[in-house]
């Protein structure tokens, strides 16, 4: 069974927790901190050990020197010479003799302390190896209880200059205990520190991405109808404010185009309703009131005219929407603007004469542009038909084609001595369905789409259009189009409204 539920409103997007930025930031924070703390801990421990062992080694060094002073070997017999009356000296010697070993060059033990026996005597090979070294060697060994000792071993000479193997040592168990305590404490507290860093990371990441979330939330609330919604800036001037600002500008632009579409659809329905009303009403009333075939005929003819008007509105709309959505493919080719203008001007000579308007042209042949001929003809005829339509009897319309003063541009000017356009209407004349209503003449013919076409044609040819008008005196349209093969920056156009004939 197929099912479908229409959901209204904007569905809320949710971020998967584990893939969320906040979690990932906090997690990397934790990982980073763990590695850092472990490395620091290990380095510190190593450093501590080296320092403590260094202290012991230094003490051993001193004792080694002292031992060499107190130990005399005479005739293979070692003798500790110390003044037994001096308690200090006796103590030193006692200390020296706590861990020591003396052997002959073959490793046969001559004298030793008990502790050294527990550590174990050096093998003859080891004795020979050490005795060949230029300096005494320091190494660490353990007794049978596992207590670590630092041993300094080397050779000493007797009164005849014969070498003997001699070693003294010191327990470094205290050092080991200190290190162990440090390690234990440190790694016991490590999880606590990691947990704390995780918490910190979570909070920091949350603070960092809160604006992102608010942007996301605001974005979710935006629909076609509340596009004016803006996310408030935080005033920090940072990257997130930048993001919010870009976002706000985007919605503002969208809002503008939605507004245009809304206005356009209202306009279209308004434009279509008027002829529809006329068609319907005329036919209905004819049905009720007409008596002769002529009356029916009139009603049908009138209705057909309105149908034609309706079709032409629909046709123009379709064409314009195709044009503006880029569905019209331009066939650009080198085009002599003067030649096209001459053609179009010829077409308008008869309607102008009928109306009593003088139509003149000054066409400079040296303006070749790359353009679609059909569109340029449409541009010219839309502008010319407006000029002729709004110029009263006895007026004149002038068409001029020339190279513009700024290099690289062709200039087309259509100037009339017509009614002119009120200044407040000028910014809107290129809008669709915009018509300047003139009370004197009540000229509301046309669809208000002609200039929209003109604007589009100029735009797709990379040109500029400028209009200058004085009410009651006339209007001048200036179109600039780029000459072939000379892409240049558009020159600034003066927007003179008050002085059309400057």
């Amino acid at each position, binding site marked *: 069974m197929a099912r479908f539920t229409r959901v209204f409103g904007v569905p809320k997007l949710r971020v998967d927790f584990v893939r969320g930025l906040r979690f990932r930031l906090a997690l990397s924070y934790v990982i980073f901190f763990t590695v850092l703390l472990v490395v620091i801990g290990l380095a510190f421990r190593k450093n501590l050990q080296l320092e403590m062992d260094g202290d012991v080694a230094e003490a051993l060094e001193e004792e080694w020197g002292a031992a060499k002073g107190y130990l005399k070997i005479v005739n293979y017999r070692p003798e500790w010479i110390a003044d037994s009356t001096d308690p200090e000296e006796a103590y030193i010697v006692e200390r020296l003799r706590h861990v020591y070993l003396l052997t002959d060059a073959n490793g046969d033990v001559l004298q030793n302390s008990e502790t050294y026996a527990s550590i174990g005597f050096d093998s003859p090979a080891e004795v020979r190896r050490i005795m060949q070294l230029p300096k005494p060697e320091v190494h660490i060994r353990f007794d049978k209880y596992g207590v670590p000792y630092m041993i300094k071993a080397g050779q000493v000479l007797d009164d005849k200059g014969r070498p003997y193997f001699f070693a003294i040592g010191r327990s470094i168990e205290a050092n080991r205990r200190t290190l162990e305590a440090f390690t234990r404490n440190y790694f016991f507290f490590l999880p606590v520190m990691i947990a704390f860093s995780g918490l910190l990371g979570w909070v920091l990441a949350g603070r960092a991405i809160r604006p992102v979330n608010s942007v996301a939330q605001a974005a979710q609330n935006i629909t076609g109808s509340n596009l004016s919604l803006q996310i408030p800036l935080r005033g920090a001037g940072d990257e997130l404010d930048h993001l919010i600002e870009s976002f706000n500008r985007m919605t503002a632009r969208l809002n503008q185009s939605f507004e245009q579409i809304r206005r356009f659809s209202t306009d279209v329905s308004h434009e279509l309703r008027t002829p529809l009303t*006329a068609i319907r009403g005329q036919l209905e009333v004819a049905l*009720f009131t007409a008596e002769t075939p002529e009356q029916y005929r009139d009603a049908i003819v009138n209705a057909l005219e309105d149908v034609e008007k309706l079709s032409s509105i629909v046709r123009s709309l379709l064409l314009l929407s195709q044009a503006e959505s880029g569905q019209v493919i331009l066939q650009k080719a080198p085009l002599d603007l003067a030649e096209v203008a001459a053609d179009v001007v010829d077409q308008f000579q008869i309607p102008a004469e009928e109306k009593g308007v003088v139509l003149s042209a000054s066409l400079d042949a040296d303006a070749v542009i790359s353009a679609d001929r059909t569109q340029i003809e449409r541009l010219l005829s839309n502008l010319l038909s407006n000029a002729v339509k709004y110029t009263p009897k006895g007026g004149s319309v002038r068409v001029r084609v020339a190279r513009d003063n700024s290099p690289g541009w062709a200039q087309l000017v259509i100037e009339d001595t017509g009614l002119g356009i009120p200044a407040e209407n000028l910014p809107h004349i290129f809008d669709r369905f915009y018509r300047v209503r003139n009370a004197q003449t009540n000229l509301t013919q046309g669809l208000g789409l002609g200039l929209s076409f003109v604007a589009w044609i100029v735009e797709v040819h990379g040109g500029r259009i400028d209009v200058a008008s004085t009410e009651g005196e006339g209007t001048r349209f200036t179109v600039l189009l780029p000459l072939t093969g000379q892409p240049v920056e558009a020159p600034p156009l003066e927007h003179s409204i008050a002085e059309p004939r400057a």
Partner: protein
Amino acid sequence: MTLPRPVNVKLEYMRILVVEDEKRIADFLSRGLESAGYAVDVANDGAKAIDLVHAAEYDLIILDLGLPDMDGLTVLQKIRNRKTSPPVLILSARDQVDDRVKGLEGGADDYLVKPFAFVELLARVRVLLRRGQPTPERLQVGDLTLDCIRRKVTRASENVELAPKEFSILEYLMRNRGRPLSRTMIVEHVWDMDYDGLTNIVDVYIRHLRSKIDDKWPVKMIQTVRGIGYMLDLPEKAEKAG
């Protein structure tokens, strides 16, 4: 098909001002209204409309909102500033609820969106023209009576129980005795809002009403008017009107 003629002979002399700039629309409006028995003047802009209102007495003004020289609402305001002013029916191509509310708040009595059916316009015109006449507390058509105060309905001295909406529809029909009312008008009047597309509901209520006040008696009062809606009257008169 012929246009339903007004029943009341007095209406034939009523004057209507049509304010409309589209010539085609003004033409068919005046032709249609004239053939329905009204005297019609046409103004094709706001200024002329105001002049005409000052120069002559009209019983009704049909006002298009999109005028070349001024906004229809401005014209409405100027007309309403006079001491006595006729009812105004607005014609507009704007169908947003906002526009409708603005029009009605501006003092218009009715609002019709283009394009419209001419018979619909005519039905509304007739109802508007009847306004201003004193409305009796007791309405009577043949042996059917409706007491507006006590909200009681009797047919041939027999009490008829009606639901509130049925009562409202019957009251509206009886007040406009002999005038065809469109389904849209009934919806707008009884439900106080735009039941766009829900005009079927009117047919349902009319069926209920008929079963209560017409079915048992030989004389049927609620008439169906083809292409418009319904009308209440005694059958002899209704035949004349049809």
